[in-house]
């Protein structure tokens, strides 16, 4: 099912990594580095959605709940308990995983799937937003401010490029996880669950357990994203880190790029960050980027449900007729020999 051979895959991974590593050195302006940070950030949190939604087929509309849990966990530990900011990383991952566990156990025990699951995650996110808005420890509606003390010790960087490499590391890890899923037993089971739960069950897969596991993994990743967000922007509040916008963005980059693919979220994220920057600088219209994005979502679902990556795959086959023809020939021969037998 892969368009590329093993060798070609590694070439792609290596090539992209190289590009990402030198990007801020080639384009050192503040604008470009910020673009890079945002693109990678969306790629990272998009990948977290993708793992649950694309790989395992559990679409959530409230993924921000994990993100916010991580953001608040990390910030509260830092601001209310005086812990060093670096503790925020494991704390946010754990917070995200725990919330993933809770939501997973509750929802899957009740047998929720498809649209119902999507909606209940939305409700969970809303609940957390309202809670965060109302309790003291989160600063209520005022949010929480992290004092700017740029130093690696505080998980802040004087130069933006520091944040760039941090989020790059996280994104590379998320891609590695996606690649692992494509080649592991766990990933195969998730794919089976996504495609047909009854068959998966009949083959011995404990779908409840696997689904909960994937929510924990996805939650941990989104939580980490929350920690990064807090450290980069130095301000969080309930409407930002528990609001619908982030849920939508996580979903959009994956669906548009290609749900269930390794690089889908990255493609979608680069596009989102790109469209965002272009519309902001050229048109100064608030919301235009999302108008384009919403339209893109409808178009993609309608005509290219497997996302832009699918488009690239088809172009690749079109440009490499030998590979394509060979594959078609092989499958045709296979079908014919069976028919004739």
């Amino acid at each position: 099912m892969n368009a590329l051979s093993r060798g070609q895959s590694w070439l792609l991974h290596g090539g992209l990594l190289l590009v990402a590593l030198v990007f801020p050195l080639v384009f050192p302006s503040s604008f470009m580095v910020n673009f890079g940070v945002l693109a990678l950030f969306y790629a990272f949190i998009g990948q977290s959605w993708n793992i649950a939604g694309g790989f395992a087929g559990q679409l959530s509309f409230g993924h921000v709940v994990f993100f916010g849990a991580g953001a608040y966990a990390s910030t509260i530990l830092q601001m209310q308990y005086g812990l060093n900011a670096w503790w925020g990383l494991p704390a946010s991952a754990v917070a995200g995983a725990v919330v993933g566990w809770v939501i997973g156990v509750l929802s899957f025990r009740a047998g929720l799937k498809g649209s119902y699951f999507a909606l209940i995650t939305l409700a969970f996110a809303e609940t957390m937003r309202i809670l965060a808005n109302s309790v003291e420890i989160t600063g209520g509606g005022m949010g929480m401010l992290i004092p700017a003390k740029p130093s690696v010790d505080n998980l802040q960087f004087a130069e933006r490029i520091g944040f760039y490499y941090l989020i790059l590391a996280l994104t590379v890890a998320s891609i590695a996880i996606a690649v692992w899923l494509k080649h592991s037993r766990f990933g195969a089971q998730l794919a089976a669950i996504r495609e047909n739960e009854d068959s998966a069950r009949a083959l011995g897969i404990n779908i409840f357990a696997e689904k909960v596991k994937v929510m924990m993994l996805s939650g941990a990743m989104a939580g980490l994203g929350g920690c990064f967000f807090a450290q980069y922007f130095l301000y969080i509040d309930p409407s930002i880190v528990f609001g619908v916008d982030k849920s939508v963005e996580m979903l959009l980059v994956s669906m548009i790029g290609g749900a269930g693919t390794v690089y889908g979220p990255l493609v979608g994220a680069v596009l989102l960050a790109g469209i965002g920057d272009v519309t902001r600088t050229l048109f100064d219209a608030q919301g235009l980027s999302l108008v384009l994005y919403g339209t893109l979502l409808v178009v993609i679902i309608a005509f290219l449900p497997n996302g832009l990556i699918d488009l690239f795959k088809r172009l690749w086959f079109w440009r490499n007729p030998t590979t394509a023809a060979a594959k078609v020939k092989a499958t045709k021969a296979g079908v014919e020999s069976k028919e004739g037998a």
Partner: protein
Amino acid sequence: MDLSIIASATINGLLLGGVYTLVASGLTLIYGVLHIINFAHGSMLMLAMFGVFYLLTKLGIDPYLSIFIMVPAMFAFGYLLYKGLIGRFAGGKDENILLITLGLAILIENLALMFFKGDTRTISVPYSDTMISLGTTLVPLPKLISFGAALGLCALLGLLITRTDTGKAIRAVAKERVGARLVGIDVDRVFAISYGIGLATLGAAACLLMPIFYVSPTTGHVFIMVAFTVVVLGGMGSFLGAVVGGLIVGLTESFGGLFLGESLGQIGIPVIFILILLFRPQGLFGAKQ
């Protein structure tokens, strides 16, 4: 706790609940007939509310009179939208149509953001400040009118569904799609009409909400959660459920605000939604799946 405060909360909850019922009835109709979860419901209500706003501020039309403009306009919009876009995907995977309506919601909301900017808008009509007293409670007149109109319109909708031929066709399609087709009902047209009616209820609800609420491009978010909760509580596709659910949700919001404060009080709605989905997904009156 002072009895008059409880009475006040009850009355206000019920009054608001009446309008929630109207909003939710469109959603439940769309779900019952088309089996589509219309995620764009909230943003379309917002759009309609802006329509009412501009009808008043630019053309001086009273919001309650705008009903005669908004309802047909929204019906036409819904009908065309179904024919042009939604209808193509009605048969496909559940999740696809949910994503498409999500895409629509994003589109509409951000178009509104672009053109109307982010500020909140309210309207005032000459009778905005008139207070009517119900027992110990003082209620703004518009709230009372909206409640009455909402219930009236729900009753009208109910009559439409049960007494007219179109309504019968709608019920037939909702119950048994293939069978309906076999007896000669143009199912696709029924779908389009149902979607149109679903949006028409939003047109009406917008007229009733503008005098007592506010609108901004993000208002859709507020109402989508409320609408979903009412529908899920009442039971997907159940009209009676929308009525009962709407009133319960209105009361919950009102009492939530009373006992938990302005901020935390809102938590009742998503919590009800979660509890229903976890423990009684068919709602109060829905069919057991």
